[in-house]
């Protein structure tokens, strides 16, 4: 019946399905789920963990609410680090870097490369291990800034953190504290995996313990930019469509007008997040599952607060190891992609499509802020020499957006595919047999 050919090889890094491709819109399926067998359809259509939408329109305001009354009429109390609610006069600490350093304003006037102090270049001789003299008892305490930003003095139990800027890239400008609690993160991971059980690797299902999820602050550069992009190419508009021949030999032909198309767009980008760790920035889906952590972006970075190591007490962190210069090619690539998305609606009259051939980017100004963003991370190491892969399930610590990679049991997947294929082939043969 069906030819028992091997499944197609996994996608290469730049090929279809890699993060180099534009991701599918959420909720869209390449195959209509209604055509699938019922057990598979039920699993696929089960609800996803709910995420709070922080897409562009919501990001613009970045509302900071009074924790007491919920009002948003909030002002900085001059002469202190406190905020005051003008409605109920409640005061609290929460210096958002957005207002503190004016990161949300002046996008139109950006010029040159502006770096916040925490986004400066990492010194070549910087070390990860830092020694501090405990201010409580005078003992020497070492903090490994690779993964921790606070430590407890083992003599006097005094807790202190790395608050001053150090040249090893470990101290960012701002931090976005966790909002999603552990119980919530565990529930979301469980819900996510429950949608993907039928063909999951048996060992994964047996060892699945979402309670082992860890809270981690990952390093990002949050970039504002002002740029202009020119694109040029050719577009075609259909003028005539006709068929020739008859019966089975009938063929459709098209006539079209060819146009040379050029577009120019000036735009500003607010708070574009870029991974500032070389390991996390490597989105090779053949070798790792870092694209999972990339997918739970964006965060409501408007609400980030000024760096204070106390936020990281008991939470691990990853250290930044990429400078602005390293990330600039990635930024340029994303700016070009954004511009191409922006001009798409202006070429909609080319109903046979447009082939862009050249593009030109002028970056007028950029502003870089380094930030620690909160992620709940569950990981599973898939065993097996060459097929070994570290699978992540990640929950956005602010919005709750959940994404993950669940290892598959290949033979089960193949069996299901072959069964459905055989069934379809059976119908096809039946139709052919009856027709002749």
């Amino acid at each position, binding site marked *: 019946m069906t030819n028992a*050919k091997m*499944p197609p090889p996994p996608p290469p890094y730049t090929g279809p*399905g*890699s*993060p180099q*491709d*534009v991701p599918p819109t959420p909720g869209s399926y*390449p195959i209509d789920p209604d055509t*699938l067998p019922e057990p598979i359809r039920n699993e*696929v259509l089960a609800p996803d963990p709910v995420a709070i939408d*922080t897409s*562009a329109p919501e990001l*613009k305001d970045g509302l900071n609410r009074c924790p007491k009354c919920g009002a948003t009429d909030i002002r900085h109390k001059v002469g202190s680090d406190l905020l005051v609610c003008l409605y109920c006069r409640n005061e609290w600490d929460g210096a958002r870097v957005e207002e503190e350093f004016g990161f949300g304003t002046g996008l139109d006037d950006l010029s040159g490369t502006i770096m916040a102090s925490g986004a400066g270049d990492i010194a070549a001789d910087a070390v990860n291990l830092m020694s501090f003299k405990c201010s409580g008892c005078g003992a020497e305490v070492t903090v490994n800034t690779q993964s921790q930003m606070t430590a407890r003095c083992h003599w006097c139990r005094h807790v202190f953190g790395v608050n001053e800027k150090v040249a090893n890239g470990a101290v960012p400008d701002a931090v976005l504290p966790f909002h999603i609690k552990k119980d919530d993160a565990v529930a979301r991971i469980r819900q996510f995996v429950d949608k993907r059980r039928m*063909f999951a690797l048996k060992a994964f299902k047996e060892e699945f313990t979402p309670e082992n999820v860890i809270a981690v602050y990952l390093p990002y550069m949050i970039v504002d930019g002002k740029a202009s992009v020119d694109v040029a190419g050719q*577009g075609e508009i259909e003028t005539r469509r006709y068929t020739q021949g008859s019966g089975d030999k009938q063929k*459709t*032909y*098209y*006539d079209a007008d*060819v146009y*040379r*198309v*050029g577009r120019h767009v*000036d*735009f500003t*980008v*607010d708070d*574009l997040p870029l991974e500032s760790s070389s390991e996390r920035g490597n989105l090779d889906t053949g070798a790792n599952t870092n*694209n*999972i952590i*990339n*997918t739970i*972006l*964006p965060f409501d970075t408007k609400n980030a607060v000024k760096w204070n190591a106390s936020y990281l007490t008991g939470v691990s962190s990853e250290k930044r190891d990429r400078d602005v210069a390293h990330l600039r090619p990635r930024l340029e690539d994303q700016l*070009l*992609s*954004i511009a191409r*998305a*922006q001009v798409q609606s*202006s070429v909609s009259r*080319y109903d046979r*499509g447009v*082939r862009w*051939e*050249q593009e030109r980017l*002028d*970056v*007028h100004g950029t502003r870089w802020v380094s930030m620690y963003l909160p992620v709940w991370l569950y990981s599973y190491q898939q065993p097996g020499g060459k097929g070994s892969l570290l699978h992540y399930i990640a929950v956005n610590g602010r919005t709750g957006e959940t*994404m*993950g990679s669940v290892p*598959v049991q290949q033979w089960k*997947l193949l069996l299901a595919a072959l069964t459905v*294929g055989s069934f*379809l*082939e*059976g119908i*096809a043969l039946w*139709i*052919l047999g009856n*027709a002749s």
Partner: protein
Amino acid sequence: MSDDGGLWLLMAGPAGATGLYWFLYRHYRNTDKSHAFEHETAVEAKPVTGSDEKIGQVKGTRETRIAGDNVGAYRTRVQRHGDDTERGK
């Protein structure tokens, strides 16, 4: 039933098997997902300007789209030229 139509119908089995395999593989492994920064970032763009100039005609092609259509493939880079980018300022 013609040979042509019959051949297409016979492809239904392998095509369905391959399609389902990839559909489920991506549903579990999510290798096609990434941050949709084109739409999830706050972008303020001035009105798009540009030029459209007719340079020729195509007659009697059987292709339904222009060759190399990349209008929706934002992330596929094409030839860069004449950048005036402020590098290392």
